């Protein structure tokens, strides 16, 4: 058994941690949030230059051959500063689909993705269709035209291309669609965590390519599983910041002639927040250290349930212990809660993943 990180992994963590620690304070983050793109293009360029966008791709695709462990420690650092740059949407989800796909020009697309020149969004969920990945109405016809409505397409307003998941013949496939393609329209919106998202409307839109006709559903599933590991790691980073901010605040804030942190009832609450964070880290490690594919899948479902619950709890407690200040837009702690709440609801609810865990 080996639970330690490699030298390369430690270097990566240090480099991400350095960026988040010195170049990504709360004010910088909110500037990104309130900008037109919902993120800072300069940061995105920097991520590309530092090679971060290349991590989960194989060397023959121009990547760094990194795995879930690398992504996970990166996202944990992102979570500590609730970074809004669209890594999940581009690299993990769209990249995750592309790298596993049989799309002919995938090498070109991935190259542009890694260089930060092109952004790509995955469009799979549909309104009122719930969380099951195969529950879609959108149909890609034999000649590659596609009609339908995709919702909460992460980072849609910034996407140059879309990977649209839909029914195809008797199975499923992906359709590659460029921004502004005839018959396509994006309704952009902000999500309450400060990220951007959108609905993708398609009406007889001609796809540039239809791909992975035999195993699209499995590819989508694998990309989402990787996404769950990433957002869970992100949640753990956010939880760590939440309890640290809370300790700091209660030490500074004086009521009844002493620091709030001196009250035992509040100390116990902060201990609980810390414990939830630590046990979440442990569970994440269990997932990362499990090789058996089926066992690992089951554990990822469990991870989503565990971490989402813990994250919401820690975020709520952090706000509560900040008192009135915790619910103001000007304090960072409320923004952590918002992101943690979104993570709770990404890809499916806690109950959904508990059921998936039980069933698999």
């Amino acid at each position: 058994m080996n639970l330690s990180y490699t030298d390369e992994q430690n270097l990566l963590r240090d480099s991400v941690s350095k960026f988040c620690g010195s170049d990504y304070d709360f004010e910088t983050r909110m500037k990104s949030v309130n900008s037109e793109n919902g993120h800072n293009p300069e940061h995105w360029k920097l991520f590309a230059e530092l090679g971060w966008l290349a991590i989960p791709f194989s060397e023959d695709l121009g990547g760094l051959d990194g795995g879930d462990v690398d992504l996970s420690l990166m996202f944990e650092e992102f979570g500590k500063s609730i970074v809004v740059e669209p890594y999940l949407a581009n690299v993990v989800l769209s990249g995750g689909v592309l790298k596993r796909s049989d799309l002919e020009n995938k090498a070109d697309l991935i190259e542009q993705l890694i260089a930060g020149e092109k952004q790509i969004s995955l469009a799979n969920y549909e309104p009122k269709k719930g969380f099951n990945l195969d529950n879609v109405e959108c149909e890609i016809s034999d000649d590659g035209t596609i009609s339908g409505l995709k919702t909460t397409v992460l980072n849609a307003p910034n996407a140059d291309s879309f990977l649209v998941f839909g029914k195809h013949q008797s199975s499923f496939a992906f359709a590659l669609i460029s921004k502004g393609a005839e018959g396509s329209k994006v309704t952009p919106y902000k999500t309450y965590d400060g990220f951007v998202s959108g609905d993708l409307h398609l009406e007889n839109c001609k796809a540039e390519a239809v791909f992975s006709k035999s195993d699209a559903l499995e590819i989508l599933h694998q990309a989402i599983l990787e996404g769950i590991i990433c957002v869970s790691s992100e949640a753990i980073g956010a939880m760590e910041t939440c309890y640290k901010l809370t300790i700091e605040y209660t030490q500074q804030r004086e009521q009844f002639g002493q620091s709030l942190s001196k009250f035992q009832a509040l100390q116990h609450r902060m201990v609980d927040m810390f414990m939830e964070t630590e046990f979440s880290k442990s569970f994440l490690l269990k997932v990362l250290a499990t090789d058996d594919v089926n066992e690992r899948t089951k554990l990822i479902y469990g991870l989503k349930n565990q971490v989402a619950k813990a994250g919401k709890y820690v975020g709520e407690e952090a706000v509560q212990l900040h008192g009135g200040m915790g619910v103001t837009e000007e304090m960072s702690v409320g923004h952590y809660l918002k992101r943690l709440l979104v993570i709770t609801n990404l890809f499916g609810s806690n109950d959904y993943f508990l059921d998936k865990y039980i069933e698999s």
Partner: protein
Amino acid sequence: MDLNFSKEDLEFRDEVREFLDKEYPKHIKEKMNNGDELSREEIVEWHKAVAKKGWMGHSWPVEHGGTGWDATKVYIYLRELALAGCPTFVPFGLQMVAPVIWTFGSEEQKKKFLPRILNFDDWWCQGYSEPGSGSDLASLKCKAVKEGDEYVLNGQKTWTTLGQHADWIFVLVRTDDSGKKQEGITFILVDMKTPGIEVKPIITIDGDHEVNEIWFDNVRVPAENVVGEEGQGWTYAKFLLFHERSSIAGAPNMRRVLNSLKIKAKNTYHTDKPLSEDKNFQSKVAQFELDLDALEMTELRGLAAMREGKSPGAESSLLKIKGTELQQRISTLAVEMAGHEGMPYGGPYGFSDVEVAATKSDQISAPKYLNFRKVTIYGGTNEIQKNIIAKAVLGI
């Protein structure tokens, strides 16, 4: 002892329903059903409609214009209003400062303020918390110095709900800092139009502007606006807080929200069967209903005691804790139901001109959840309420 309504009670219930049917303004009802924010004018319009019927004083003594209803009638009345989705009454005048005025105020103050509160001619707001004085309210520093027949106010209050709409504010000020911190606090009524008052918005995590900072810069207030005795404000402040806390629980409103979620669940699919048939969801709803029943009966017990002339005491802390916990639980349930379709930001400063695929009710679930984080903090945090129960109820 029985829980059945008498024939008279049922007639009264029908009377309330008839009133709501005829007099609850349709455009307000529509906005409330959609989860839209009401303007100041609309909130006033609703209160005026109730005032015209003579039903504003449901918790007031008859001598000051109260309805004189027994506990059952008050319960029926508030329940019908909540079930019809009416806006909750702005409590700062009606339920908070009014009892202080009729209990501790002068005859002139009673004559001047109570009828206008009952008729909602004046909108009141609260000047209690300060940046450095939240849970430890008695440490407040906002200062009032007597000069002739006036007090001169300097300092800052915060978390003043809907202060941007208010005509009057009741303020706790320090008139003496030589003794214990609870001494030397004075309860004073201030016209918001007085020169030197500035209202600064505080934006909360749901993106809304509901609370404010209120700044006082040499604000001159007539001495006749002091309630009761100078230096005795802490006694009145606590009396008011008991009234505030007993009106926070909001069980009937939660009953309405729960009903609407149950209906929505029949058409909400997270998997291939509707959420209403999902065991996890069913047990959450059932547990919520059980807790709500217990809360409602606790509220009724308090109401019955009030009708027998007892002022709400430390027991109101029970209602505050449980009521606000349940409010947060149901707002969480709504967020869970919305799933990822609750992600588009539907708060007050969200999109205005784009048509989003997610339903309006999904989109407002998260802003509501975020807004409800405040309820376990305001009116004295739930942690403080537990201290009060330990000390004043359990005698520990």
